[in-house]
């Protein structure tokens, strides 16, 4: 590793999964200087993934803390919570906080995350969104047996919230403007497995349905829908229509932004003292011809944290981790690794016990993506192997992929 003597103060802007992981990795790599983590939520870092899943079903939502106060103290990390960074003075290398305090840095990480997109329709602000633990608590207080819920957006968050609300006894309908659910995330056949499971639980997923406006109707809401004679009424309306990267601080500081804070494959911004990682940044992915992508996932936040920490300390590591995410809906677990485009062909491995994996092969035979659905985490081991095969640029034999009696692990060694 390069010399680290010139780096004595590191400021982490953002106290989510990514910022917290960077703090930890910096210490694991032996950094002994000051670490200041600044987060605009009034909480110690906590995990967001459970908020739309298991935690939303609990009577009282308690945070799964990534770095509780005791761990922060052990690691010697100063957390400034409930405080935003207002501006950066890049020449003097200092961050100006919302309470007017100033913090100087030798290296600064932007891990500012993303925020839930609001519906761009009349009354769109009446729909609840879910991003933070406070959002989850507000949503939870409105859910319960017999409550009617309309979820707008059949992406991962929308479907997870629909499953959780259904498990709480709500009557749930999901409206999706696109022709199918999970269009951005998954192959159609895998999305169908989940949509069918929702139907079995009495949750309708209506595709090609475009909401036009939301109005108050006493204590309830009316969602106008294009092509419908009547609006759909509900006690609760939730929008799960994607997230917007928090780039304002970077942009105001003159850093390049392109669907996120633009970084290179080392996670460096235009300013050699400033890095960005997690949901807020877009980066060229070496496994996919250097295509610039932005990922909103727990795993990416962690993977990029490791690279950003190393490079802030003078390392020169490339971020090349295979994109990976999971979802839990009812008792179904979904895991997905890689990125596929429309040129890919698919191979299915059906285990016969209710779980299946769909592999995507590029025209040159390289495995580029794999998705698994099944009970619980039944496909986890195979998706993990698939991820390693994707990372290695492996061209697996299609028959082997399709045969559930052959261990995928064998392909790693061939």
């Amino acid at each position, binding site marked *: 590793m390069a010399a680290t003597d010139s780096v004595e103060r590191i400021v982490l802007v953002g106290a989510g999964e990514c910022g917290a992981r960077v703090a*930890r990795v910096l210490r694991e790599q032996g950094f002994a200087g000051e670490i200041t983590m600044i987060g605009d939520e009034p909480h110690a870092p906590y995990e967001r993934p459970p908020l739309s899943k298991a935690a939303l079903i609990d009577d009282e939502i308690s945070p799964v803390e990534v770095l509780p106060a005791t761990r922060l103290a052990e690691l010697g990390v100063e957390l400034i919570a409930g405080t935003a960074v207002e501006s950066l003075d890049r020449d003097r290398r200092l961050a100006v906080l919302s309470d007017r305090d100033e913090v100087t840095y030798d290296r600064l990480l932007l891990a500012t995350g993303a925020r839930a997109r609001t519906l761009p329709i009349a009354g769109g602000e009446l729909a609840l969104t879910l991003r933070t633990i406070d959002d989850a608590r507000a949503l939870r207080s409105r859910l319960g047996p017999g409550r009617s819920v309309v979820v707008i957006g059949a992406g991962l968050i929308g479907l997870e919230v629909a499953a959780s609300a259904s498990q709480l006894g709500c009557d749930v309908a999901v409206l999706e403007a696109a022709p199918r659910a999970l269009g951005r995330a998954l192959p159609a056949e895998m999305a169908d497995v989940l949509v069918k499971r929702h139907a079995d639980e009495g949750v309708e997923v209506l595709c090609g349905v475009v909401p036009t406006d939301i109005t108050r109707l006493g204590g309830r809401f009316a969602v106008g829908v294009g092509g419908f004679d009547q609006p759909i009424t509900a006690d609760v309306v939730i929008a799960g229509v994607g997230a917007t990267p928090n780039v304002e601080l970077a942009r105001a500081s003159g850093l390049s932004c392109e669907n996120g804070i633009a970084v290179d494959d080392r996670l460096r911004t235009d300013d050699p003292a400033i890095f960005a990682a997690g949901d807020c940044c877009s980066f060229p992915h070496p496994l996919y011809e250097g295509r610039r992508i932005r990922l909103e996932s727990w795993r990416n936040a962690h993977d990029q944290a490791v690279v950003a920490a190393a490079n802030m300390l003078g390392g020169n590591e490339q971020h090349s981790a295979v994109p990976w995410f*999971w979802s839990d809906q009812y008792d179904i677990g979904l895991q997905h690794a890689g990125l596929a485009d429309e040129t890919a062909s698919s191979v299915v491995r059906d285990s016969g016990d209710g779980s299946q994996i769909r592999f995507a092969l590029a025209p040159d035979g390289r495995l580029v993506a794999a998705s698994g659905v099944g009970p619980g985490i039944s496909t986890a081991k195979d998706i*993990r192997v698939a991820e390693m095969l994707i990372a290695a640029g492996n061209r697996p034999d299609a028959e082997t992929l399709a045969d559930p009696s052959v261990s995928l692990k064998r392909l790693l060694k061939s």
Partner: protein
Amino acid sequence: MSNWTKACNADAVDCEDVIPVAIDGHDYAVYRSPDDDYFATDGHCTHEAFPLADGLVMDNIIECPKHNGRFDYTTGEGQGAPICENLRTYPVKVEGGSVYIDLG
């Protein structure tokens, strides 16, 4: 005091793999290393309690199937974030084609 209890047949675990074993309501994971040695640990990850036997074994490492936390299953040692707590291990012996765990 030792308390050797039969966990499984030795051939129930593939080489470089892991299986779940429940004894008296407690979950364990029993591993067979690439060198054909057997090891046992608690069955659940110390991070968020997912069953480790659904995870992938590579050499002496078990990786949690949910969040990719890694442990050396021969020592129980966590291999960095997100793991904060090591995994409990148990002495193992193989006799007459059976794997025994010392539950202590």
